[in-house]
């Protein structure tokens, strides 16, 4: 009796020790929480003139995080289970976290430069607290290896996103927030129900354990298919992929530019990572991932690109373009081999840089004209030539033409897809390949429309003075340069990806 109690105490001690060891690996998340609390406290303590302080705190916390993450990044880290399997730390996840921090930092810079919204963002802590919350959720999404953790982190991201959409005055904002919330809550409820069935089928919530994988393999195919489909619904919603993409154009149109920048990158890439994990633990089951992801990818590319053709608003167009890009990433995910993961991650990071640049430059034009409708872009190429050329480069990159990195991303993706077809002979992969190529041609038409309006149309508004040097030119160049750099020396990034240990 006493011996048993002693043994239990020892076990408890060991468990507590492993928990405290785990905390050390969570320092990025802890930094985020500290930053969130600091912003909140600063907002509560000081009464007026809070803008500078709040901006300084948030930007310095994120810069610190970015630098510290880059310095401590180790490409071939062993994947490590923490907190009794709730969280798995891996190099791939760390790479994604660096990308998220970069995006958030840039969104803050955009917010500070925005004419319309700078006041709103920094005059109180609401926006920043939601942003930090979203970032925290995304960090946990990339790390979670347990159904409970996946659900909780997805919900943290979702609730922060609803708040970010709804903050501020405006009829459109509240409408978009309501639509986003209803779709999102329904999708996550469906996902939760699917998760409860996965738990019932396997008796384990930890998707990396043997119990889970054995249980999945032994499960009845029909139930299993429905359960995985339901779980997929929540992930696809965060990815903004077909057929759960309906919310994104409205949200993108109504939310302010910096918020949209974060939405179009952070939750999407986090969802890609969750998808990797889900697939790696259910690969051997009866669920035909390639078939279904192939159909979703084809549908997403087609719907995204063709809907983008009719848009008259730059943000709405970029929303549809991001749906199409999500589908391209899915077509890399569905290969599910080492090459597939690498090209998807490569594509994801090029997409991150391209989208940052595109939204940043469009915000520069928004600051100049006060609108993002296509008509307001007319003739601006003559008054703001340098910015217009930068935007042209970004649009070429989004289409996937040389000499910018978007071309490499698409080239690597399509060659990996084609190799996947040759090695497996799976028809659906061939169809994904064909549709991908056709859709790239379609996307040229809408991406090139903004530069066309900028350079070849004359505008109604006459802005006579030529632009001199502005800070936004420096930032724009800073964002566009990596696109050229990664086109000519894409092997740098590919080498880095090769050395990374992608264990999920």
């Amino acid at each position, binding site marked *: 009796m006493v011996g048993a109690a002693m043994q239990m105490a020892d076990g408890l001690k060991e468990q507590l020790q492993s928990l405290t060891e785990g905390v050390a690996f969570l320092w990025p998340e802890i930094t985020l929480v500290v930053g969130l609390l600091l912003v909140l406290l600063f907002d509560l303590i000081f009464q007026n003139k809070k803008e500078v302080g709040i901006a300084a705190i948030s930007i310095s916390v994120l810069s610190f995080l970015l630098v510290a993450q880059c310095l401590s990044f180790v490409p071939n880290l062993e994947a490590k289970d923490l907190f009794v399997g709730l969280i798995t730390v891996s190099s791939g996840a760390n790479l994604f976290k660096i990308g998220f921090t970069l995006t958030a930092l840039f969104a803050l810079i955009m917010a500070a430069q925005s004419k319309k919204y700078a006041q709103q963002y920094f005059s109180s802590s609401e926006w920043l607290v939601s942003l930090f919350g979203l970032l925290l959720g995304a960090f946990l999404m990339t790390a979670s290896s347990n*159904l*409970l953790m996946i*659900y*909780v982190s997805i*919900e943290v991201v*979702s*609730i922060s996103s*609803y*708040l970010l959409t*709804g903050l501020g005055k405006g*009829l*459109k904002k*509240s*409408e*978009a*927030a*309501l*639509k986003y*919330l*209803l779709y999102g*809550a*329904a999708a996550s*409820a*469906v996902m*939760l*129900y699917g*998760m*409860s*069935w996965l*738990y*019932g089928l396997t*008796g*384990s*919530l930890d998707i990396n354990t043997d119990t889970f994988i054995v249980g999945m393999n032994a499960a009845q195919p029909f139930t299993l298919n429905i359960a995985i489909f339901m779980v997929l619904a929540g992930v696809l919603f965060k990815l903004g992929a077909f057929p759960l993409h309906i919310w994104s*154009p*409205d949200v993108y*149109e*109504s939310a302010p530019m910096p918020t949209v920048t974060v939405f179009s990158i952070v939750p999407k890439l986090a969802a890609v990572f969750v998808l990797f994990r889900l697939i790696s633990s259910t690969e051997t089951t009866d669920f035909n991932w390639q078939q279904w992801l192939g159909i979703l990818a084809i549908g997403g590319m087609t719907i995204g690109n063709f*809907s983008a053709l*009719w*848009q008259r608003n730059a943000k*709405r167009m970029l929303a549809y373009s991001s749906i199409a890009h999500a589908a391209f990433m899915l077509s890399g995910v569905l290969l599910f081999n080492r090459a597939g993961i690498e090209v998807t991650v490569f594509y994801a990071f090029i997409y991150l840089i391209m989208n940052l640049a595109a939204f940043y430059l469009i915000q520069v034009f928004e600051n100049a004209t006060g609108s993002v409708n296509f008509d307001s872009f007319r003739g601006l190429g003559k008054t703001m030539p340098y910015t217009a050329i930068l935007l042209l480069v970004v649009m070429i990159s989004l289409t996937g033409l040389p000499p910018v990195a978007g071309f490499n991303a698409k080239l690597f993706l399509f060659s990996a897809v084609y190799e996947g077809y040759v090695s497996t002979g799976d028809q659906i992969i061939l169809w994904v390949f064909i549709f991908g190529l056709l859709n790239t041609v379609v996307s040229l038409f809408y991406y090139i429309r903004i530069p066309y309006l900028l350079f070849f149309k004359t505008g109604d508004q006459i802005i006579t003075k030529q632009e001199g040097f502005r800070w936004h030119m420096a930032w724009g160049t800073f964002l566009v340069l990596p696109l050229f750099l990664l086109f000519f020396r894409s092997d740098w990034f590919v080498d880095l990806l090769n050395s990374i240990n992608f264990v999920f």
Partner: protein
Amino acid sequence: MLLLGALMFCVGLFVVFTRKNAIMVLIGIELMLNSANLNLVTFSRFDPQALQGQIFSLFVITIAAAEAAVALAIVVKVYKYFKTSDLDKINSMKG
């Protein structure tokens, strides 16, 4: 219990798809969440090691409360602008 859960889930999904009032849709979503809770608690009986399902359902209850708070705040805001909570009339954006 599982049948009850499935029934609740179907009713919730049906409510979400058919009702036009934002509040009714939210109620439908709550029904779906609670059906998942029921499932989790039921399956937790067969869990050999720990009561993971019950813990999970506690988390779900908490998150559902947070979500409902945000949802109602947004509905109030929408009501301020549109003077209705009918989802068919809240469509200023299309395309």
